[in-house]
């Protein structure tokens, strides 16, 4: 797979046989790289991506071990390092997404060519086209080197400057060693004021048109237990209401996150400090993760998110609250732009009752550890084995 051939050699009459077997032992990550039938040709046949496990290489008599290893490596995101072009095009995809990608790239390319060759367009639009071109062909954030990460952050900042004439501050700060973020929620303290919800929306630049909210506060009847189907998460009356208690849900940043397992393109993953994050530029918007999440932690942008310019939080992180686009997933990141700088997430800071506690689970002297060790804590749907890092407790 070398030379220019890889960019346009598409096997449109895809006849690749799918030979994936199922063994029900839940392979942990993404695709399984069904080996190609015909190794002499670069094949972009129907991708068999998500979920499955171990297709049997034994049945493929005429595939060399080398090719198989390469296919597996490509599927699990290891192996030789690929540049942006490779990451975009050197994967198995179906005809539809191939056309989609080619069209998008062509449009951007055409734009770049027309602006850069034209004598009438200004420097700014040439630079814009250049940035768009490079952004289109950048790789998966997870696989980028530090320089590449800085470069894409710089491009995004510059692009915003060119388009909106405003400066933003974007970070690509990595997970710190010896940090594992955890969260505790005191059900007896929450009064249902929803200050956390509005603080979250302001901090994370959520779409104002669709009124997207990461946090849900459920108003539940005393003495009935946790009945989410009977609870009201969109109340508007004086709170706390007589005979009710309140409990908040959001992304629980599971240590064994099912949303990450199902992502066919590995656009979402668990960081070393326990945060489950999304690369908005890699997400294809299939919403598998939304379906896989047992806690309703994920949100989808049905339309282009809009935030009034003066309300945009300009302190951003690549994996956090930077502006999203139409058709991508987003969710709570424990305010990665704040938490990695030592601050509390916006919801914790906004809570007037102190019902929300955040901290480092690996620090034996942290307050979150004291809560876990001294209060009677529980988590939602613990039996699923998702290991959420979000505990509930009562006084």
């Amino acid at each position, binding site marked *: 797979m070398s030379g220019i051939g890889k960019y346009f050699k598409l096997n449109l009459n895809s006849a690749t046989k799918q030979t994936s077997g199922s*063994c029900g*032992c*839940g392979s*942990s*990550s993404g695709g399984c790289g069904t080996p190609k039938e015909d190794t002499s040709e670069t094949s972009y046949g129907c991708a068999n991506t998500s979920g499955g496990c171990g297709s049997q290489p034994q049945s493929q008599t005429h595939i060399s071990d080398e090719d198989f290893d390469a296919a597996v490596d490509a599927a699990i995101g290891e192996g030789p390092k690929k540049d942006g072009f490779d990451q975009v095009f050197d994967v198995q995809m179906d005809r539809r997404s191939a056309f989609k990608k080619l069209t998008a790239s062509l449009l951007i390319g055409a734009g770049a060519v027309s602006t850069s060759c034209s004598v009438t367009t200004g420097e700014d639009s040439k630079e814009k086209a250049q940035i768009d071109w490079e952004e289109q062909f950048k790789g998966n954030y997870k696989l980028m080197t530090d320089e590449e990460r800085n470069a894409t952050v710089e491009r995004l900042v510059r692009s915003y400057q060119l388009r909106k004439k405003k400066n933003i501050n974007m970070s690509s700060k990595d997970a*710190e060693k*010896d940090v*594992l973020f*955890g969260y*505790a929620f*005191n059900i007896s*303290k929450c*009064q249902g*004021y*929803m*200050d956390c*919800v*509005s603080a979250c929306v302001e901090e994370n630049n959520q779409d104002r*048109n*669709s*009124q997207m909210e990461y946090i849900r506060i459920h108003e539940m009847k005393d003495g009935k237990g946790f009945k989410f189907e009977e609870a009201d*998460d*969109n*109340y*508007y*009356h*004086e*709170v*706390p209401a007589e005979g009710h208690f309140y409990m908040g849900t959001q992304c629980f940043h599971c240590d*064994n996150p099912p949303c990450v397992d199902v992502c066919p393109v590995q656009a979402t993953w668990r960081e070393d400090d326990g945060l489950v994050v999304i690369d908005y530029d890699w997400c294809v918007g299939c919403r598998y993760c939304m379906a896989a999440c047992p806690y309703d932690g994920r949100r989808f942008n049905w339309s282009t998110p809009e935030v009034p310019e003066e309300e945009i939080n300009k302190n951003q992180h690549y994996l956090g609250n930077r502006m999203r686009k139409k058709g991508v997933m987003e969710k709570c990141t424990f305010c990665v732009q*704040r938490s990695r*700088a*030592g*601050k*509390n997430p916006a919801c*914790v800071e906004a*809570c*007037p*009752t*102190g019902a929300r*506690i*955040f901290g*480092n*689970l*690996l*620090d034996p*002297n*942290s*307050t*979150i*550890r*004291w*809560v*876990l060790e*001294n*209060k009677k804590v529980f988590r939602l749907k613990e039996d699923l084995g998702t*290991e959420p*890092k979000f505990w509930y*407790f009562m*006084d």
Partner: protein
Amino acid sequence: MIKKNYIYILGCTCVVTLFSCKHGEGEYHNITDKIEAESKNYHGTSISSEQLLEGIETIEISEGPHTFLIPERKGQIKSYACTECHTKPLHQLKINDTIKKAHWDIKLIHANLNTMNCITCHNGNDMDNLKSLTGNTIDFNRSHRLCSQCHSKQFEDWKGGAHGKKVAGWAPPRASMTCVNCHNPHKPGFDTRWPAGFNTQKVKERE
């Protein structure tokens, strides 16, 4: 011969079962084990909230096994020191009711009048300090000791970090709000009020 084959197949099955269904679950059985194991060699992180605490005057307190910072209080009280007005003991300052009282806006809504009144916490002869139930002096900066006389359960939770809020961030050094940073000592309860917002789109989506 058949028996040998049988044993061979059985052996193979055992080996296959042992190695086949490897989940991607890592080395720990659950998150609690993981936290316990990985925090054994914890030597602190480079993230600190010291910068966030800049400009906030704090004092260090030690209560039982816990040592942490709380915001300094005296500087936040508008007319401290109290003796600047209360030049004489309270009973000598008392005159007729025609003059407008200085603390006219304070209404005590804290426990009931059988349990508490002004002099439960304030000392008419020493207005610059608070006093404990037994008449000992308590500094305004350490008012949590006054509250902890009755609210012992909340005090335990606060010391550990289950009650109350942090001043700035999660990172060490720990700086926690003290009781009076959230609760008005004369009216410590939280009011009922309307929620911060109402999601009209959610209503439409669910129609």
